């Protein structure tokens, strides 16, 4: 017996006939050749979120982003003209990595007037122009104008900085489409109190997206997090979302929850009662503009029990907006078919006093307790998928976002394969 209404098609999934309802193959998460194909077909030609404008607040602010999945490292920098640009992190002289400290694989950040290569002191300005060649007279007709840093597409949406290694990619706003548009105007820029976490995970990147793209697991895996009576109730009821929406390749799930404040204080732990905060964040909304009314894309079911909306922007960026007025991001950066770097950030409005600060602290501590349980399932899943003892799995209606993710990723790989094949044929034809 459903507790929340489903669409007329009978299920969320059947609203999107292209998804099908059959079992889904997970060989896409264990096959090294498929992973290589994903790198070319997805990560080298799709908009990737690499950070926020607050990370490059003024002229000369920069950070580097390691993109192992696309075989590169990028420099993101704000120029004298206030533009945020992205460049491949490579010196044009002989290929040394331009910006790094002691360890070439570690990301760095800072503020500078120019970039100087530590190998031969070639210098570049903040807009990427080559400005100085050491012993320039020793070179053979090298024109500095021809040797600027190699630029990468970089665009900003609502303060989120995206890059795309494909120069021919459609504009970012078009790519983010209706789901992106529905979030515009949310006061992300006010939420500058940031907690960032990182882990290397022994699983395919899609498995962790899966883990956070459904809440079907929540009453089971996280059963011990709630107080006993409440946990039993949640387990028996199970999970049903308020709403799902697919705007391929992106998707979102809208969920109830949060209990802020709870109807019965005994439903929550003593520290939550004392600090008026918990998993869904501080119970009291910060006093900023832009939270009421919310942008139209949030709480699409307009449900009074709304707790959080989770957006999956393909391929690897998740954005969760919580009813009490804060947001959370997840990024999954593949490093191998069975490994990825997981990064997550919690963003709050800066607290004005100790009470607010401790409420945010509790939300952050609680988040980590949950995430550790989520992370721990992944390696176990990866190793068993690798056994190929079972390759196809039945996904339920509350797992529609997973079905979409794997289908979109497979379709992109297939389309890329067709394109490559056609390009080869054209070359062959031209050669004949």
């Amino acid at each position, binding site marked *: 017996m459903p507790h929340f209404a489903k669409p007329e098609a009978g299920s969320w999934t059947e609203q999107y006939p292209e998804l099908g309802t059959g079992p889904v193959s997970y060989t896409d998460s264990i096959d090294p050749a498929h992973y290589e194909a994903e790198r070319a077909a997805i990560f080298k030609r799709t908009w990737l979120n690499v950070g926020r404008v607050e990370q490059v607040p003024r002229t000369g602010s920069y950070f580097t982003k390691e993109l192992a999945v696309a075989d590169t490292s990028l420099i993101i920098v704000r120029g004298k003209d206030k533009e945020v640009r992205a460049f491949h992190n490579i010196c044009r002289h002989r290929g040394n990595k331009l910006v790094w400290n002691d360890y070439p694989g570690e990301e760095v950040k800072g503020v500078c007037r120019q970039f100087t290569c530590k190998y031969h002191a070639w210098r570049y300005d903040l807009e990427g122009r080559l400005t100085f060649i050491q012993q320039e007279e020793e070179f053979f007709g090298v024109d500095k104008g021809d040797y600027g840093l190699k630029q990468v597409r970089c665009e900003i949406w609502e303060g989120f900085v995206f890059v795309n290694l494909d120069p021919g990619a459609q504009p970012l706003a078009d790519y983010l489409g209706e789901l992106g548009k529905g979030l515009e105007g949310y006061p992300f820029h006010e939420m500058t*109190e*940031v*907690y*960032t*976490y*990182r*882990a290397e995970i022994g699983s395919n990147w899609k498995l962790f997206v899966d883990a956070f793209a459904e809440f079907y697991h929540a009453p089971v*895996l996280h059963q*011990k*997090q709630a*107080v006993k009576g409440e946990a039993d109730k949640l387990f028996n009821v199970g999970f049903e979302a308020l709403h799902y929406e697919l705007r391929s390749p992106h998707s979102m799930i809208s969920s109830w929850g949060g209990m802020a404040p709870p109807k019965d204080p005994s439903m929550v*732990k*003593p*520290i939550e009662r*004392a*600090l008026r905060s918990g998993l869904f964040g501080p119970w009291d909304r910060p006093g900023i503009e832009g939270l009421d009314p919310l942008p139209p894309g949030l709480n699409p079911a307009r449900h009074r029990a709304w707790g959080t909306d989770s957006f999956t922007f393909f391929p690897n960026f998740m954005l969760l907006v919580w009813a009490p007025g804060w947001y959370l991001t997840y990024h999954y950066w593949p490093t191998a078919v069975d490994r990825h770097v*997981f990064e*997550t950030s919690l963003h709050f409005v*800066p*607290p*004005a*006093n*100790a*009470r607010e*600060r*401790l409420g945010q*602290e*509790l939300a*952050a*501590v*609680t988040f*980590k*307790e949950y*995430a*550790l*349980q989520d*992370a*721990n399932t992944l*390696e176990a899943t990866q190793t068993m998928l690798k056994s190929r003892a079972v390759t196809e799995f039945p996904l339920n209606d509350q797992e529609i976002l997973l079905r979409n993710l794997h289908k979109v990723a497979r379709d992109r790989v297939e389309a890329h394969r067709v394109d490559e094949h056609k390009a080869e044929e054209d070359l062959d034809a031209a050669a004949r």
Partner: protein
Amino acid sequence: MPLPADFADLRPYAAWALATEPERYAKRLAASMDEMQSFYDAAFARLEDAIAYIDSFPWDDLPDDARSLLHLMQSLVMVSFPVEVWKQPRVPDSGAAYLDLISEPVV
């Protein structure tokens, strides 16, 4: 840093006044349940007083003793899960998983 004079009863737990999450998390994992229970009981009883004391100063200009007291209360939040729910230092069902905090607003 010393705790404020009015919080002398928390002095036995001054080692929990740690400024960063990695320090607080490591101390939690290294602590026994008895230690955490005793710290929790003492600190929770003074939580409201502590908030009132800290908030009697401008938030952007806290004296050192208020700052220490806040760090201690951040540790109270840290141990609340082991004490209130887990009955063990580490979250259950988390095995070898880890999640390192790499940046936070340190007070």
